[in-house]
């Protein structure tokens, strides 16, 4: 079984973010790392391919500057190869443009299953995987907390407000997984060494047969009109617990008539 995992390489979320003063896009100039959210999809893909008795896990990613360090992390976990779409014209691409690029690349890999995170940590638009599914004419099941392959179909436990739904879909399909559903493996030393020589195919927008007008800032058809400081909360009272901190909490709750 061949699985494609959509992965995103993002600025370190622990570092303070910044907007480009001109374009108001998130600055992605520094080193990029594998989005933590994607590690679950990679792990899930490896487990599903293994359970199905073999098959390849292919990563598909888009980045404006040829970045591969995040991809190497996922390759070190065990993915076989990666397709990276990198092109200067991609800067400023929105979710729909990203989906067009990813869908065109995924088509070349002819997967049985496409996995993605429910949303990225940096942009968190949360629509790209479903847009990919619609572009490819495939069914999609989002917010999966459990995924099983049986024959030519995928069975998913999908998170709902009230609990979860059991959903079945024929393959190929697009499934998004929530975090915490599997425990992503740490790359082994052997895996890290092997990842260095695994194939990363780098493609341009033109290679995918897409019109440059569909991507980048022009293709996004939306603009940031303003960025302003939000109203800050006024500072509260901070006390160091000396064994009676809990009494302060109780007094505060009483004051609010919660108790």
């Amino acid at each position, binding site marked *: 079984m061949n699985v494609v995992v959509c992965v995103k390489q993002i600025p370190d*979320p622990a570092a*303070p973010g910044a907007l480009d003063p001109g374009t*108001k896009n998130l600055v992605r100039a520094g080193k990029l790392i594998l989005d*933590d959210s994607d590690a679950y999809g990679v792990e899930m893909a490896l487990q599903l391919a293994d359970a199905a008795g073999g098959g390849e896990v292919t990563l598909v990613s888009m980045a404006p500057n040829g970045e591969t360090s995040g991809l190497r992390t996922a390759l070190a976990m065990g993915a076989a190869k990666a397709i990276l779409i990198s092109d200067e014209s991609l800067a400023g691409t929105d*979710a*729909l443009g990203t989906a067009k690029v990813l869908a065109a690349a995924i088509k070349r890999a002819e997967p049985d299953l496409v996995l993605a995170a429910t949303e990225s940590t940096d942009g968190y*638009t*949360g*629509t790209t995987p*479903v*847009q990919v*599914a*619609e*572009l490819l004419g*495939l*069914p*999609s099941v*989002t*917010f999966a907390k459990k995924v099983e392959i049986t024959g030519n179909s995928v069975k*998913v436990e*999908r*998170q709902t*407000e*009230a*609990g979860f*739904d*059991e*959903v*079945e*879909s*024929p393959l190929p*399909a697009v499934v998004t997984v*929530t*975090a*915490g*559903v599997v*425990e992503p493996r740490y790359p082994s030393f052997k895996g890290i060494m092997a990842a260095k020589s695994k194939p990363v195919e780098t493609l341009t927008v033109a290679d995918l047969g897409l019109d440059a007008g569909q991507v980048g800032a022009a293709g996004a*058809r*939306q603009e940031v*009109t303003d*960025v*302003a*400081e*939000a109203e800050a*909360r006024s500072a*509260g*009272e*901070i*006390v*160091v*617990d000396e064994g009676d*901190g*809990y009494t*302060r*909490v109780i007094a*505060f*709750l009483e004051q*609010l008539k*919660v*108790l």
Partner: protein
Amino acid sequence: MSVDKIWVLAEVADGAPITTSLELITAARELGGTVEAVAYGDATASVAATLGDYGVTTIHDVGDLAGSLPGSPVAATIAAAVAAGSGPDAILFPATYDGRDIAGRLSVKLDRPVLTNVVDLSAGDGGLVSQHAIFGGSQMLSAKFTGEGPQIFVVRAKSFAAEPSGGAPAAVVSAPAPDTGAANAAKIVARHVEERSGPKLDEANVVVSGGRGLGEKDQYALIEELAGLLKGAAGASRAIVDAGWVPYSHQVGQTGKTVKPTVYVACGISGATQHLVGMKNSKNIVAINKDQDAPIFSVADLGIVGDVHKVLPQLIEALKARG
């Protein structure tokens, strides 16, 4: 482009429209023009009075989906209306599991971009202007579409207050989905309702959340116990959801739920921007964390610099003693 007609996705749960949909209908009404709703499922007729009371004139009823997930069929119904020239200038989706699916599918069908994580909307030149909380809600970003409509927005819960306007019951117009073939092949075969002892996380008056500072999975029981004693709901930071300690449904933050309770009690949560954006509009915030430099204290009304493993059991015992 003027916005004269706005559609809102009216999701129905337990026989009533969800609160976020009512919030969006209220907002759409304030933005002017006609407000219509899109609904699906077998209970649409029974919510016509409520939706009308909030200002909806017409409900486009996709009807029962026969086990299909809503994304593909509901998007197809909306796209068909747009193609027929009877569609809206803007359409608002609640940021729910199904709302995002429908918005994403619709975006491709219409080849229109979508703006998500919207927390406010206003009328501007050329359509609506949306606001988005970024960097943990420390900054507000305004955005607008530059191309042709309809404009698609996905709006976070609790961005607006839901207020009825006393309108007459909405007219229900049947709008069955066109066949979408393979894209609609995923089917719900069983539904499971998980037992919940207290209020829903996003409706609770008190929310007690735990984070990495709890140290280990078993310690989350302290959060559940305290939430229970305060008749509140138990939440979680992304860190412990990612670690598999608690299910995603408990997550408060950018990638989880937005909560605005009377009191939010953050226990062992450092206050990463990811978390702050989901809870900083709570009316009152209590933070318990051993690191006095933790960012959570910058939004706390009462901060206790202390060990959650000491403070929480003391708090729980004292509350139990009150009976």
